[in-house]
């Protein structure tokens, strides 16, 4: 038995598009242990969501997925689709970005929360329904026993996201995947949802993969972090190590671009340039064209390897930044 809940190795996802294959994820490794929170960080299109969807068998049909994925010690890539589906439903819960669209408009919320319980726990319809009421109550939906028969459009965005969380938790999953669950919500609600997930995680001991571009959230809740760019991991390690001593220019730039309330509302720093076209990725470091360090021809033509800088802390660059340089 592996001690990881979910571990992916050398995962590559190529998506067939009308204008040729687009490499969305390129040789990514990461893993998450029981009760631990892994944050996947990056801009849109960096492959952070795609790596998770592909690992759990939810990639679009046009995607070709290679690599190894172990969920609770079982190699998923060798399983027939039906077994992968059952494992996914039973052990992994998903919370997606936009609660306005991720709930089915014509089914009651109770039905949508309950159905995975019927499918995977063999609950009767009645038992699944009362379990759904418990969960709606657990995620903080007021008068859950009445609201269970309401339709999604009768809830606010924040409440809908709570419903989605209840839905993800019905089978008491070992792993919760939260794909930018707060992006579509207003700031106050965002904080409540983050709080809720963190609280549930403490009580239920669930491992969490939190996909986000909000570094503030990462610092608050994650144990480990992986920074992705153009389908590759550029830096990963314990949150304290990565945030305390960012060794990749991209990580530093991301951290610098973060609006810092303590700094009293200074100018927002942005990273110049745009991520590369996934249909036409450069041979060397994909960040090189935007890199403030801008090493040399080697960066342009040769892919830097992922090298360790401290315990569990790895970085993909020829020019890792030293901790002493980081002192301000």
């Amino acid at each position, binding site marked *: 038995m592996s001690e990881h809940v979910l571990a992916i190795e050398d995962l590559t996802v190529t998506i067939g598009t009308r204008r040729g294959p687009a490499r969305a994820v390129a040789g990514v490794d990461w893993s998450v242990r029981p009760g631990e929170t892994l944050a996947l960080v990056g801009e849109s299109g960096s492959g952070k969501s795609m790596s998770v969807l592909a690992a759990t068998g939810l990639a679009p049909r046009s995607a070709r997925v290679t690599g190894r994925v172990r969920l609770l010690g079982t190699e998923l890539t060798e399983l027939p689709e039906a077994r992968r589906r059952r494992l*996914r*439903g039973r052990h992994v819960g998903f919370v997606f970005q*936009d609660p306005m669209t991720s709930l*089915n408009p*014509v089914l009651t919320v109770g039905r949508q929360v309950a159905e995975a319980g019927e*499918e995977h726990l063999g609950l009767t319809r009645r038992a699944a329904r009362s379990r759904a009421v418990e969960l709606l109550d657990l995620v903080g939906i007021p008068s859950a026993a009445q609201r269970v028969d309401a339709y999604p459009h009768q809830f606010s965005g924040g409440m809908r996201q709570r419903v989605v969380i209840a839905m993800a938790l019905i089978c008491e999953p070992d792993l919760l995947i939260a794909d930018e669950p707060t992006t579509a919500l207003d700031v106050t609600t965002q904080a409540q949802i983050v709080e809720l997930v963190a609280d549930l995680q403490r009580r239920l001991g669930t491992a969490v993969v939190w996909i986000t571009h909000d570094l503030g959230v990462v610092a608050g809740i994650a144990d480990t972090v992986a920074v992705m760019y153009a389908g590759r991991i550029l830096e990963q390690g314990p949150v304290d190590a990565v945030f305390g001593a960012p060794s990749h220019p991209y990580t530093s730039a991301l951290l610098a671009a973060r609006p810092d309330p303590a700094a009293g509302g200074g100018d927002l720093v942005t990273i110049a340039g745009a991520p590369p076209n996934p249909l036409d990725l450069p041979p060397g470091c994909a960040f090189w064209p935007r890199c403030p360090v801008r090493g040399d021809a080697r960066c342009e033509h040769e892919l830097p390897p992922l090298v360790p800088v401290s315990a569990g802390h790895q970085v993909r660059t020829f020019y890792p930044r030293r901790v002493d340089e980081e002192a301000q």
Partner: protein
Amino acid sequence: MARFVIRRLLQSAVVLLGVTVVVFLLLQLVPGDPVRVALGTRFDPQTYEALRARAGLDQPLVVQYVNYLGRALTGDLGVSFRSGRPVTTIVLERLPATLSLAVTAVLFAVLIAFPLGIVSAIRSGSLIDHAARVFSQVGVSVPDFWMGIMGILLFAGVLGWLPPSGYVALTEDPAGWASHVALPAATVGLVTASILTRFIRSSMLEVLSEDYVRTAEAKGLRTRVVVLRHVLRNALIPVVTVVAVQLASLLGGVIVIEVLFAWPGIGRLTYDAVQARDYPVLQGAVLLVAALFLLVNLLVDILYARLDPRITVK
């Protein structure tokens, strides 16, 4: 919900009133004197005066319309210029033939279009999807009467399996009815099926790309459950409307098909009335069809509101 129904009812009533105006004005558009035109060579002063008076043509236009409307509301649509029989009776006599043809055709269409549309969306890009797209493109482009003629050629002429035309009432001889309805219903049904297939396919594809379908897949539900519970329910809500609109327009008489197959329905009645310049019958048939059309559309909207929980609260 009650307010929605009442509002829709009022809207339909206003449109129906407009329909009666149009139908009434049809007679006024006839160049010259419609009764004289209708009688043609059978003209004799006595019949002429009687028909004119009966149609109220000797009065001012507005009075004529108010009278027409008043009588129409009591079910009196005048008398035929040809036979002198009440138009309401004549039109209602033809309803069963049209109804049985339209319903059979729609059933036939639904049986083809639903499986084909659903499978072609789920297996998008597959062979069956391509076949479905060719079928629907051909179906919407083919003139149904041409297909009917080819059907007669093949099934009545070459194979000799089915009668080329004619009608037997369902209540008299179900087997005879079935053999007579098969060709016209298949002809109309194939065209309807192609419209439905296209619509179902695009509706399904739209729903399949919705986030909540990915949510359902993420839950590890079986494909069958995802499709039946999450995709179909949403995809079919608009499809119900289209099926009903198709049915309504078929009730309005597949004039050409009824003429081709000598099917004595509303469409054939309309055609005969046009040929005989029997304007009251033409008016009656058109009015009845438009009223049916409006009624079906009204029912569909109410059904739609029942199916989609988002509408009821508004």
